[in-house]
């Protein structure tokens, strides 16, 4: 059995056709993941007991003639910032090295309810802060496409396992591009749904007003299926939306002729030439499909990085306060007083990037600075959202690059955090506006590095986004 090329559809066919049982598939997927993982360090740990128990439930349901759900038997990997009851969840941090959650995230419960088989937890930047997966306390992830390169971040492990074939689909989280950018770097599909579409209950908070859980997969269809399972109102998350969840896969009908697409000119000026060329060819494909492509303007884009790194760090400085050595975290042994215990625990426990963001966020919320930074950033955020609202008066979807450049070499940018922040420019705007956005593969550079194209649509209009991405995917790229 070749588990590396499976899709959700293929798994379903295999199970219903009795080609293999869910247990056989899970066992083989676990074996393959264990064998392949040393190449990439994409999994932090496998969860064989939980996986086999889930697979057994699916087999039992099949034996009773029951429908085991849309994800029946599908091996899923989960980013290690999403809580799994009884399975250690580290968030890529030394502080949570031994943290075993007492509850499941809502997305996890829904995923298993639908028959999904959680294989294990994937590596990520510490507390999802980073764009290269080099900020993990458990070592960087290598890009399976080019092992000397980063997989992107912060959901680098989730993108890598899908690209490597050690999971069929994966859950990631996105605060400023952490699903789309690694999806683009690893040549897979990655989706950031509308803010509020998927419950955040059980997602370790980085920046609460920007955090999303979303799916990654080899195909648009797989991500549409997975999102359909995890989406929907959750009473445990006050910010989750009470909007109906349509059947996303039913929209994958190729009907994109006449769709009006906008190409924001502010997103094209700083793109590396090869990525820009691939993007241009992608746009040509969309035109051939009958889409009406026009240039649009999103004028607030220039302020987006500054705005994002104020709001995200402000919220992060507060969200990370709970890792204080008092309860479930690592505690420094070298302290005599309470304040030293805090200082030493957090000093020794957090990596450099988290400390940098905690300091930034603490600063922008401080007395005397709040108005100049946090409040102003909130106003800019409103302008960015208004830009998109204006654009969607004119177009049905926006097409844009995901990243200014393809996967870079490990270590290449670690010493330049500002350059790393600036590379988030095309993805953070979607998070700030709370609109759905995704990355779909758009070809490869001469060196064979994947490049993704980003599609953004109106709030809660994932349907149009999936329809367009699916048609693009099927039309193929150069």
């Amino acid at each position, binding site marked *: 059995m070749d588990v590396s090329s499976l899709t959700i559809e293929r798994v379903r066919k295999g199970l219903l056709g009795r080609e293999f049982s869910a247990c056989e598939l899970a066992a083989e997927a676990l074996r393959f993941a264990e064998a392949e993982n040393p190449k990439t360090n994409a999994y932090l740990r496998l969860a064989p007991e939980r996986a086999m128990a889930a697979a057994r439930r699916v087999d039992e349901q099949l034996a009773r003639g029951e429908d085991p759900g849309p994800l029946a038997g599908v091996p899923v990997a989960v980013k290690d910032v*999403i*809580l799994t009851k009884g399975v250690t*969840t580290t*968030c890529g941090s030394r502080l*949570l090295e031994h*943290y075993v*959650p*007492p*509850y499941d*995230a809502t997305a996890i419960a829904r995923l298993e309810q639908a028959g999904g088989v959680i294989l294990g937890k994937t590596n990520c930047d510490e507390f999802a802060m980073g764009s290269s997966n080099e900020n993990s306390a458990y070592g960087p992830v290598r890009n399976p496409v080019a092992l000397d390169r980063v997989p992107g971040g912060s959901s680098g492990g989730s993108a890598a396992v899908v690209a490597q074939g050690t999971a069929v689909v994966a859950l990631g989280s996105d605060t400023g591009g952490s699903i789309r950018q690694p999806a683009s770097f690893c040549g897979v599909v990655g989706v950031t749904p509308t803010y509020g579409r998927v419950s*955040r*209950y*059980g*997602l*370790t*908070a980085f*920046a*609460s*007003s920007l955090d999303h859980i979303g799916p990654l997969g080899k195909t648009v269809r797989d991500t549409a299926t997975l999102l359909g399972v995890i989406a929907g109102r959750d*009473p*445990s*998350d*006050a*910010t989750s939306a009470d909007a109906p969840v349509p059947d996303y896969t039913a929209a994958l009908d190729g009907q994109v002729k006449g769709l009006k697409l906008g190409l924001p000119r502010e997103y094209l000026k700083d793109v590396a030439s090869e990525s820009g060329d691939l993007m241009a060819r992608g746009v040509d494909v969309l035109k051939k499909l009958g889409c009406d492509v026009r240039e649009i303007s999103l004028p607030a884009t220039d302020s987006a990085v500054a705005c994002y790194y104020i709001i995200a760090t*402000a*919220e992060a*400085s*507060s969200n*990370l*306060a*709970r890792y*204080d050595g*008092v*309860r*479930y975290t690592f505690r420094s042994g070298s302290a005599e007083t*309470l304040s030293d215990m*805090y200082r030493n625990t957090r000093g020794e426990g957090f990596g450099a990037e988290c400390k940098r963001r905690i300091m930034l966020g*603490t600063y922008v*919320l*401080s*007395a005397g600075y*709040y108005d100049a930074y*946090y409040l102003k950033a909130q106003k800019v955020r409103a302008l960015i959202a208004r830009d998109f609202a204006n654009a969607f008066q004119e177009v049905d979807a926006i097409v844009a690059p995901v990243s200014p450049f393809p996967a870079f070499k490990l270590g290449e940018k670690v010493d330049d955090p500002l350059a790393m922040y600036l590379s988030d420019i095309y993805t953070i705007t979607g998070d700030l506006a709370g609109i759905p956005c995704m990355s779909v593969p758009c070809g490869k550079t001469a060196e064979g590095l994947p490049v993704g194209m980003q599609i953004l649509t109106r709030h809660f209009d994932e349907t149009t986004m999936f329809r367009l991405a699916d048609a693009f995917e099927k039309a193929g790229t150069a």
Partner: protein
Amino acid sequence: MAAPSPEVMARYEAVIGLEIHAQLATATKIFCGCPTGFGAPPNTNVCPVCLGMPGALPVLNREAVELAIKAGLALNCAIRPRSRFARKNYFYPDLPKGYQISQYDEPLAEHGYVDITADGHAMRIGITRVHMEDDAGKSIHDGFKDSDRYSYVDLNRSGTPLIEIVSEPDMRSSSEAYAYLAAVKQVLEFVEVSTCDMEKGHLRCDANVSVRVKGADKLGTKAEVKNLNSFRFLKEALDYEIVRQIALIENGGRVVQETRLYNPDTGETAGMRSKEEAHDYRYFPEPDLVPLRVSESWLARVRSGMPELPARKRARFISDYGLREYDADVLTQTRAASEYFETAARVSGDPKTAANWVMGDLMGMLKAAGKEISESPVSAANLGDLVKRMATGELSGKLAKDVFAKMFAKGEPASAVIEREGLKQISDTGALEKIIAEVIAGNPKQVEQYQGGKTTVINFLVGQAMKATRGQANVAVVTDLLKQKLG
């Protein structure tokens, strides 16, 4: 430093504002479904939300909002149609999230007041705002074998719903502050927003205090005095702090803005180390909660469920029942007392006598037994019935007291006690004539004295008749009969 003389003291006035925290009487916590009960084993009424686990999110308890709205209305506040929660960030071991979820620039209720009477003067104290927030857990620093090295944390209280009531700096003395706290406590109990049990920490109080020379426009520098968790502590701490500040200024010093802790053992306040109080709370809107919207219809529904408030009830007791002001005050101290009285008054048909009984015998015996009025063994209707029997002459005052004592001891209605003990008043002249004949025959010396002109001896003879009837004889009838016989 010498205490200032009364003359010096008289030149100054204090300016006092209070921050009162009251625990809302909900069954569950403000952001999760854990019970709020008191006295459970440590760290048992907890869940991922109130433990501050990664990934846990708050969901606002609607019942807590309703109680907070009730408090706002009872304190004459305007309820904002849209309010908002904010995070107050600070590190402390019993604060598991690293921040408290409170309200900051958009509180639930504002611009209220309460009317008080202090030192014989009626006055109005402004209420700046009433906002909602979650409580922290409890740090326990003593009582364990290793308390010299460790502190323990109990998170049962973490997430308990609170309101904070912030007054205007409208009070000028400790007795005004005392009266204000009493008035707020009374109102909160009346509308059943909080049990206000100070011993359990359900009502806590901090004070902002400054002094200035009388007539000055500018406010002096204030100190925040914490740990005023009983009425006595509030008064003592304020009195101490006012004298301290005046003495400081009189001696050429300056009051510094600081947080001071009241020590009930010494009766003094002491500044906390500046490190402990140097807080920049870095407030910002809580992104995990959507703004709280109170619709017109919700507000109307809460308003229609509000009970009559103490001030109004007091006025009604005076006008409808003819009670004295003092009596009306006492009987509206708590909602339970006022309801008890009204029931007893209605049943008795004699409100004034009923009032005397509630305030006198009932409250006295309850106090002696260490019971609340809600736990009274004599129901309000039964007390009313007893008063009615007195009013109709069925029982004498003395008999009624005996009957009441037995009702209190056994929880029985008056009829049962009277029946069993045969305690009915004897007014029937036929039955009493026989007894009076015996008294006259048995006390010839006194009879002779009476007939000799010493008429006060009649009291002795009446007493003898009462004794013979075990107090059941109608005193007036006995006296009349004796006078007739001895003529």
